[in-house]
């Protein structure tokens, strides 16, 4: 047996080389990389920024830190104990994982999530009590939704126009060009309201003055709609396929053309 044959038979280091290669190869952990300066720098910058926030928040006497502390004080027990504990546990588990790998990161993180859920459940009633309850039985039609809105401004503002749908759907409404209503709305936006919420076919009529309300014509016409009085009134006079818009300080009028 030649020397080379003996070496290949008894001194075959190939499997061992393979093992060493396996351990040292940078490809081994394709998802885990070594840390370089350019990767540490952003984290350092972030930590520094947070420290600056804390410093400025505490130092500046005119910031609303006390007010925020009052809000946080409500959940003092949970935040003061859980957040630091969670941070320390995850930090320690990160170090443990670096040494022993396996599930040393997974299990602590998972247990912190479970504790987080149980801590959260203790404050669940007050954190879920809201003006807009996310329930199953709320209104579904746009009209009902707007009428259930908590602010009167929205109820009367958008609500007025949404209610007009019943009377103006598919009908032509002529609005003036370059006019500002008493609520400060330009004629184009007014047109959008009538188009979007009342589903009217809005046209711009350049040939009339919306401030000259035709009261003499209106006396013979029935008032078919009277909007909420929370904002300037909205009145529809007469039933026809097309209307003109008029306005004075107190009231918006839609007057039937016939």
């Amino acid at each position, binding site marked *: 047996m030649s020397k080379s044959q003996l070496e290949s038979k008894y001194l075959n280091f190939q499997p061992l080389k393979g093992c060493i290669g396996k351990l040292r190869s940078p490809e081994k952990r394709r998802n885990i990389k070594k840390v370089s300066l350019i990767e540490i720098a952003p984290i350092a910058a972030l930590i520094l920024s947070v420290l600056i926030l804390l410093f400025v928040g505490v130092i500046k006497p005119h910031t609303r830190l006390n007010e925020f502390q009052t809000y946080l004080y409500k959940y003092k027990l949970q935040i003061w104990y859980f957040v630091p504990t969670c941070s320390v546990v995850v930090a320690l588990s990160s170090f443990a994982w670096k040494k022993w790998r396996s599930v040393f990161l997974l299990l602590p993180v998972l247990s912190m999530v479970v504790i987080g859920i149980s801590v959260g459940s203790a404050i669940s009633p007050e954190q879920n009590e809201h003006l807009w309850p996310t329930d199953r039985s709320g209104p579904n039609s746009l009209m009902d939704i707007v009428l259930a809105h908590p602010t009167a401004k929205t109820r009367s503002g958008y609500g007025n126009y949404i209610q007009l749908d019943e009377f103006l759907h598919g009908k032509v409404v002529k609005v003036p060009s370059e006019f500002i209503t008493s609520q400060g709305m330009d004629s184009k936006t007014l047109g959008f*309201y009538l188009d979007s919420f009342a589903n009217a076919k809005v046209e711009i009529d350049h040939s009339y003055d919306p401030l000259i309300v035709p009261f003499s014509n209106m006396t013979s016409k029935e008032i078919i709609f009277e909007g909420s009085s929370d904002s300037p009134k909205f009145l529809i006079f007469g039933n026809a396929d097309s209307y003109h818009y008029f306005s004075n300080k107190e009231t918006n009028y839609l007057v039937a053309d016939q």
Partner: protein
Amino acid sequence: MIREILLASVLTIGGFGILLKSKIPEKSPSLWIILSLPVGVALFTVFNAIAFALNINTALAGLFLMYAVAIFCAVSTYGGKQNFYKQFVALLVALGMVSILLIVISELVSPILTNDSYAILLTGRSIGSPIFTMDSPLLNSYPMMVLNFQAIGEIFGLDYIVYLPVVTGLLAIAGSISIVSDTYFSPKRNARIAILSLYMVLGIFWITTWMLRSQLGYLNSHMLMAGFYSLGLSICISRDSVSQKFGSLFSGLLIGVVALIRLEGLLFMSLLLFAIFSHGYFSKKQIIKLTVAALIAPIIWFGRLLIEGNRGDIISPKTIILMLTLSLIPSLLATFKFTKQLSVWMPQIVTIGLSVIWSFYLLTSDKAVESSLVILSNLFATGYWGSFWWTFGPIALVLMVFGPRIRDENVWLELTAGGTLTVLLLGAIRTNPYRIGWGDSGNRMIFHLAPIVLLYIFAKIGASLISEDDSDSAKVKRTS
């Protein structure tokens, strides 16, 4: 609901057809089914943004164009009867899933319409009317995608659309979970268990947290932004592997659409572009394709708003110019040889830069300090987040500092920390500082970051579980 399902089906079929042209149906059929609706919505929005900006005053334009592209993709990839049958079954599954999600969510949560929602309805439904023109200041105050939903809703006879954007956002999040698990978990069995566990944790928090639950019925664009931002992130990290699922055009489309979801979307799109171009191996052709797909619609849409010169509540011509210029920088840096290395470092540079600017504001402006403290107060107590941030905030932060360094760590860092810093900086530069309560825009914008914070923790856990042997097999699979 039937009409909303019909519209959802129309968009899903479009997206399904378009995805035929990608590698996704072949590499991951489940992802194909999940992403059909988000991709359909993305292309529909992109086409309509271009159409409206060019004075084509109907939301049907985007739908027709999307179908033209979908039919082209389907015809050009037709692979015989056998294939057609399989694709048809997959389409039925996609349609069924979207319909069931729509029904379930509408049964669970009633619609929530705030003042912003009515303004969105007003503006969106005015698109297509004879008096609609692009000079409306409302277009500078509300984002394109959700307006587009309301515009097409009117054509389908719907008074408002709430659940379809929500389902789109949810499916985009589901898609990103699938991509992240595929990238960071190995073997596949582990990935499946991990996905199930993540869905369970997410589900529990979603049910018990008002701020998350309310988004299921809220007429606004937060679910869309949360979904597409996390999808954008997953595209960025999936580019860094041999088994790329998304080509340059698809990557560009899904990243670019982020600009149309929120008015500050251009900033978040820029973050995503910096992230994706940090993978320095892009050829010039790929850079051009990705840039065109990402930027064409935002440039045309915001360019048109710029020409009209209106000053909305949120953006003005000046801010549009600034944001558009910023969005061009990532592609330019990636194009030239002498700036290519800089492009690779951009995620780190962006994070450092944003930290420095925020620190500067903190030291010089009371508004910045107040806004930042308000955000903290909202996250921990007053924003109706329950224990969500108490739990995931510290875990994510500690893992960021002490946890295992994962592949594309810089991308994760830029998109999570950089995204948060962007929200904080917006609070520093706006006219009024952020305010206490769930409805504050800063608090609502933090919702956009919630899924990716969870995904970050998920990816770190995944990387920590990969043993050397798994890593080997994964590597072999990737290169074979």
